[in-house]
């Protein structure tokens, strides 16, 4: 079998190194800078540098095709390069958002000096861990960086040191730690199967090798391994019933962290799961792994949709909405086929942009009212029209109303589901409808109506929300050629 990537060196490798090193260097600098006025600027600069590097890398992959560098340790193809650009982009806008947001939290005394130092350094380390997870070719390093991504955010969730925050962080630490340990067992089993084909050594864990000769891997071992991958990475994706950590971590952590957890970390975990699924599918030659993912996805959609109805805390509600959307993407990847996979890839992109934008506006809303309780957040449009309309537009996008991008991706997935799995399509639609009703019922009173007297005026950074919403709108109206090319290339890779 001929290799499907072009061995590249020089420029591509340089860009890759810059991309990875930028956030790591920023993390080290920020650890030394600490709580100075300049720290948020360095944070933004570091993320911006990462973003620029990721764009260059994407250009190279777009023109030169998939590449494999650093003696096989890194592999960049259409699937992970678009997620890297997305990760770098959202981390940049989140850094811009967090500048004013965290300054206000600091002024309120919710975070101390040490807390701010820690926050900035760990934010960059988290970005580094996610990029490493995305770009590595070694399934073992993928696991290590997923764990690193958890560890770097655990203490950010408990940043405010309130009892609920500490409890949420402990839950996150233990549940994700245990969950991801299962994924390591899956990795050991995968290596066990691969060693018989490739011999001992790193070659047996390189994804490119594994995917090329997946049909030679022992199917019984890989089926068992997939169960562990599903439980392990599924915990991080936030799939029901492994989702318990997610709403707590999202609601108790600082809002910028909720935005990146929801918008980025869940995507990266799903990416890991899908990479493993490709190998298992290749080995077993059946659709078993796909069915498991479809069931987990559908259950997540339904449970999350019903739970949304009962929420009181605004960030918690949107955390459940994230579970729902991750369920949709998992379901679509499980469904397989070019249309569903295309839809799933698009869905990861639009959900990430929409949900982080929603969290930005929700962050402002809760700062205006000094609470996350939805019953107390009222009259946002009177208090700050930008925040009000921003939240409204975000919610309209996330429930899948046209002309926003989420509509396009959900429509694609639904079309594929109607054709290939009509029974699942029914549950899928029911879930979407319930989430639609639930979110609107809660958000409309928050946005409209008179402003309460305890509402305070704040200055909101417009750029992050505006940029995200414009991109989602564009993606709903028209999919740029380079993006559809990427998604086509990626779905070819994932659908055998």
């Amino acid at each position, binding site marked *: 079998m001929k290799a499907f990537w072009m061995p590249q060196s020089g420029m591509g490798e340089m860009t890759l190194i810059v991309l990875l090193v930028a956030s790591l260097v920023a993390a080290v600098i920020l650890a030394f800078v600490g709580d100075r006025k300049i720290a948020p600027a360095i944070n933004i600069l570091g993320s911006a540098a990462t973003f620029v590097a990721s764009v260059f890398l994407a250009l190279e992959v777009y023109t030169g095709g998939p590449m494999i560098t650093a003696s096989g340790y890194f592999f960049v193809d259409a699937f992970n390069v678009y997620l890297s650009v997305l990760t770098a982009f959202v981390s940049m806008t989140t850094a811009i958002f967090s500048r004013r947001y965290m300054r206000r939290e600091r002024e309120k005394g919710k975070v101390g000096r040490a807390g701010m130092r820690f926050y900035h350094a760990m934010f960059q380390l988290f970005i580094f861990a996610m990029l490493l997870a995305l770009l590595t070719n070694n399934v073992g390093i993928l696991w*290590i960086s997923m764990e690193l991504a958890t560890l770097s955010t*655990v*203490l950010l969730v408990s940043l405010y040191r309130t*009892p609920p925050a500490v*409890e949420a962080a402990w839950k996150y*630490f233990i549940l994700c*730690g245990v969950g991801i340990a299962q994924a390591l067992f899956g990795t*050991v089993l995968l290596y066990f199967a691969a060693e018989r084909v490739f011999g*001992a050594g790193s070659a047996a864990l390189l994804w490119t090798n594994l995917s090329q000769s997946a049909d030679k891997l022992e199917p019984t071992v890989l089926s068992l391994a997939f169960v562990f991958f599903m439980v392990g990475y599924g915990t991080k994706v936030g799939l029901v019933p492994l989702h318990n950590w997610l709403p707590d971590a999202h609601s*108790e952590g600082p809002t910028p962290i909720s935005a990146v957890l929801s918008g980025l970390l869940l995507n990266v975990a799903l990416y890991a799961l899908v990479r493993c699924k490709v190998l298992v599918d290749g080995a077993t030659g059946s659709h078993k792994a796909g069915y498991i993912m479809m069931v987990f996805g559908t259950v997540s959609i339904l449970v999350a949709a019903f739970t949304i109805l009962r929420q009181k805390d605004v960030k918690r509600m949107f955390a459940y909405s994230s579970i729902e959307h991750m369920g949709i993407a998992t379901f679509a990847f499980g469904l397989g086929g070019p249309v569903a996979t295309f839809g799933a890839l698009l869905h990861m992109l639009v959900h990430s942009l929409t949900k982080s934008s929603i969290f930005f506006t929700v962050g402002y809303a809760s700062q205006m009212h000094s609470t996350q309780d939805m019953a107390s957040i009222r009259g946002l449009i009177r208090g700050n029209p930008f925040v009000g309309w921003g939240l409204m537009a975000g919610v309209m996008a996330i429930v899948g109303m046209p002309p926003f991008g989420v509509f396009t991706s959900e429509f694609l997935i639904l079309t594929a589901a109607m054709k290939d799995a009509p029974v699942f399509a029914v549950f899928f639609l029911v879930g979407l409808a319930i989430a639609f009703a639930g979110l609107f019922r809660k958000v409309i009173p928050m946005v409209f109506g008179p402003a309460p007297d305890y509402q305070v005026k704040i200055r909101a950074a417009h750029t992050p929300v505006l940029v995200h919403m414009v991109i989602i709108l564009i993606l709903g109206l028209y999919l740029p050629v380079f993006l559809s090319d990427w998604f086509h290339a990626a779905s070819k890779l994932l659908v055998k």
Partner: protein
Amino acid sequence: MSQHLAAEINSVLSALILLSAFGLLVQRRIYGLLHIFAWQGVFLSISTAVVGYSAGLHHLYISAILTLALKVFALPYILYVLIHKLKIKKEVEDVVNVPTTMLIGIALVIFSYHLTAPIRELSTLVTRSTLAVALATVMLGLLMMITRKKAVTQIIGFLALENGLFFAATSATYGMPLVVELGVALDILIAAFIFGIFFFQIRTTFDSLDLKEMEKLKEED
């Protein structure tokens, strides 16, 4: 050393690892837990070295030394210091329903043997029968985390679970590639610092390391 002898030694060591996993499950005193955990690390380390010797793979010596340093000295020491600083050494935990826990544990071991049976046939290694023990150790670690209600004991359960994973890596295969093992060890070390910080955070916010206090966050009915 002949292959046969290596296989015998490894079987004994795997039995000892399983035994220590059961020991952790029911030990009430915190220092007792630390000792059992350290012993489990010793068995793990020797087993790795034996596999490395019989297969002639030198990188396994490195991971044996790594295990010894991390699981036998560093982690128990960190935990010891934490327990000392937090003044919880006298605390004795009520382990409810020892017989039931043991029975569930035994069921988990049988389940592990059943689950790994088809794979065991495939393995040609001297360690082929030990994969089930590795999985059982992982499961018992999980069980310990479920049944215990103190932060420190949960962490020990978590680390025992990691031991099981490490054992799986050497028993199912001749160890993972060194890069991966080093990375995993680094992650565990970072995790150790994080739970150290956590103990203090939990203590200052809740006045105790009892996780019964931490049941506020849940869905309201």
